[in-house]
């Protein structure tokens, strides 16, 4: 009997008149994510089905679909003709073998059948009990629920377990964000979380060769590539940052070096973001995690951003939670590679924890040709286009 995948979407059902816009985006994302695989996409009211695929690719389909933001969950269902005996046979396939509680729930869109939903559920429950007499019916809190969805065109879907998907909103429905991507654990997770809220992602990285290595840059490219499994194409901007870092080192107070570096980073990120139609910056800051992420440090850094909002989805998360997400989205192993990034190379012995905005501005002004350096860095940005990879 034919297996199909039943897809449910999440928050989209809350949308009103513009629901179509979100749904169309979701459907196009689903199709993009399943590129190269043979299947048929069927849309019904509030549900989608993936049908006519070879069973060998079922795992691959599921693996890709669980990464599509906007989908809530999916089930592996059996599609059959709406004939009672056939339904009974299939229901038995889904019947648990251990002694537990269960119910059969029937949704009947096809009103031409001679039994109503309740009667069909009772009848099919009988099939389950004949397969496993140790089962007990529990209509309120069953451990196992077998669902039968009887459609109008003379066929039915039967399914039981639910596989959770990535949830959130379809990528591309919330504008494009510019993610400041280092090589650490936090920023890829921050990007993933904003993509989950529907943002299309671009990423920016600061490269300080020879103080940092080509391996450190490759690590960031690989991290951005990992994100494409969730959000599709990513454009990565690699900013040559050596000259600026060296000038900060020569001209500015040691304890303010990181503060000033971050101010310049967000300034560059905002300029590149605006040139590329981004509506926000995204950072992996988590309150109090390091000296540059105290409230005072964030205030001083934020002041260097002129117009765009800065989204900090990890601001209230513990490191442990961030690492857990990194594991889940498969960026953990890359992030733990030990190559130095530009932040650690020029790390002063005692960075300021509560910087003053006035001092930061004054110290930054000591770099006489800063504007020239920033413009030059932006002119020499290397752009790496990353296609979706699974």
């Amino acid at each position, binding site marked *: 009997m034919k297996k199909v995948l039943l897809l449910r979407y999440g928050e989209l059902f809350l949308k009103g008149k513009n629901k179509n816009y979100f749904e169309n985006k979701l459907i196009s994302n689903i199709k993009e994510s399943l590129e190269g695989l043979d299947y048929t996409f069927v849309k019904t009211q509030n549900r989608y089905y993936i049908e006519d695929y070879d069973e060998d690719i079922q795992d691959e389909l599921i693996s890709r679909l669980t990464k599509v933001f906007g989908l809530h969950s999916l089930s592996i269902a059996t599609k059959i003709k709406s004939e009672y005996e056939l339904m009974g046979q299939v229901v038995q396939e889904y019947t648990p073998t251990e002694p537990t509680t269960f119910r059969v729930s029937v949704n009947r869109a096809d009103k031409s059948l001679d039994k109503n939903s309740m009667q069909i559920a009772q009848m099919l429950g009988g099939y389950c009990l004949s397969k496993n007499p140790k089962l007990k019916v529990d209509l309120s809190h069953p451990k196992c629920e077998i669902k039968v969805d009887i459609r109008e065109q003379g066929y039915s879907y039967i399914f039981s377990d639910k596989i959770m998907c990535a949830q959130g909103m379809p990528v591309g429905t919330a504008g494009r964000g510019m993610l400041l991507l280092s090589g650490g654990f936090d920023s890829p997770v921050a990007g993933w979380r904003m993509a989950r809220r529907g943002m299309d992602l671009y990423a920016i990285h600061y490269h300080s*060769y*020879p*103080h940092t*290595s080509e391996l450190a840059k490759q690590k960031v490219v690989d991290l951005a590539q990992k994100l494409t499994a969730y959000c599709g194409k990513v454009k990565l901007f690699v900013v040559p940052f050596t000259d600026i870092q*060296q000038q900060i*080192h*020569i001209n500015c107070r*040691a304890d303010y*070096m990181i503060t000033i570096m971050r101010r310049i980073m967000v300034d560059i990120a905002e300029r590149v973001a605006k040139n590329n139609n981004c509506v926000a910056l995204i950072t992996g800051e988590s309150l109090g995690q390091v000296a540059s992420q105290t409230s005072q440090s964030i205030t001083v850094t934020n002041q260097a951003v002129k117009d765009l909002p800065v989204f900090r989805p990890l601001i209230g998360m513990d490191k442990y939670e961030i690492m857990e997400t990194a594991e889940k989205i498969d960026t953990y192993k890359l992030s733990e590679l*030990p*190559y*130095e990034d530009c932040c650690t*190379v*020029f*790390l*002063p*012995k005692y960075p300021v924890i509560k910087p003053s905005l006035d001092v930061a501005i004054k110290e930054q002004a000591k770099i006489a040709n800063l504007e020239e350096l920033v413009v030059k860095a932006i002119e020499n940005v290397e752009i790496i286009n990353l296609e979706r990879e699974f």
Partner: protein
Amino acid sequence: MIYFDNAATTQMDKICLDAYQQYGVDNFYNPSALYSKALEVTNCIKSARNTIAKSIGATKEEIIFTASGSESDNLALLCSIKSKKGKVIVSNVEHSAIYNTAQELSRRGYEVVFAPTDRFGRIDMTEFEKLVDDSVVLVSIMHVCNETGALNDIKSLCKLVKTKSPYALFHCDGVQAYGKTPVNVKTLGVDMYSASGHKVHGPKGIGFLFVKKGLTLRPIIFGGGQEENIRSATENVASIMALSSVVEKNFSSLKANAEHIKSLQLYAYQKLAESFDDILFNTDTEHSVGNILSFAIKGVRGEVVTHCMEQAGIIVGTGSACSARKSHHRIPQALGIDNDYAEGMLRISWNESNTKEEIDQFVAALIKVVAELQEYQRK
């Protein structure tokens, strides 16, 4: 481009290409097959095995071909011990292929102890003697330290072990010694000796393990029974033949080459010592092979120096003590290197074709790079 990272790998000698043409394309036959062409290939391998055996004073029956020095080390440590418990001694500066395999032996229930070395990576004989008792079942000590070039007195170490624990096996990782210093396994007295092809201008993917006659190993790869049933797999004929031709071509001049290489080491040492005040040498030139010189300059990171030198057209290495690889801090720690220098470790390693002029260019470039980098020392 000057290449000073020969301890990591060497450029393959072009003579190897002939072997690949001959045994990869022309006589590509599987030596286990029954036709006469296959027999010809088998005989060629036999002859290559003989050449390689002779290069370390062994017989051809005592050579097991492997895919790498690491595989040889794994085979020696994991497949030779007969008893189910006992003490295993390895040095604390061993290459990861030994160090991590010893950790595996520890997980399997053996008591693994790490023998300390002096500041330059040479086994501390007094401390070593204290560790050896009759519970020892296996000792593995590297002939030459890959980080510093330190040359261990394997003959004395082996004698000491055999005196105190006659049934203990002695393995020596000779990956950095083979082709750099004369090796005679019979004189050294070892039971097993590992070597690798790509460190001596041979191809990557070929190594061997000397196993003393009379000693039987358990198989590491099961299959068709090649390599005396210890390491089944169709022989890597072209690589075996390539390695054999390199050995035949180069090993007759090993002594003269070693002298030239030593003169480069002494010259580099002198030039560096004259050029830098804050330099710490990790190589003792009196007790080391000549192709490696390890040092650190205070306040500059080895990794950054490597990148800057590459920009200047000179490739140098950091060994495994690269500052960024936090898991590899064990070598500077084992050598007792001060934190100010630990992140700055550099390992330069040359070969017989390098010259003093190239050392001059290297030192001149390093002076420039260090001066620039010292501007950006951590504040």
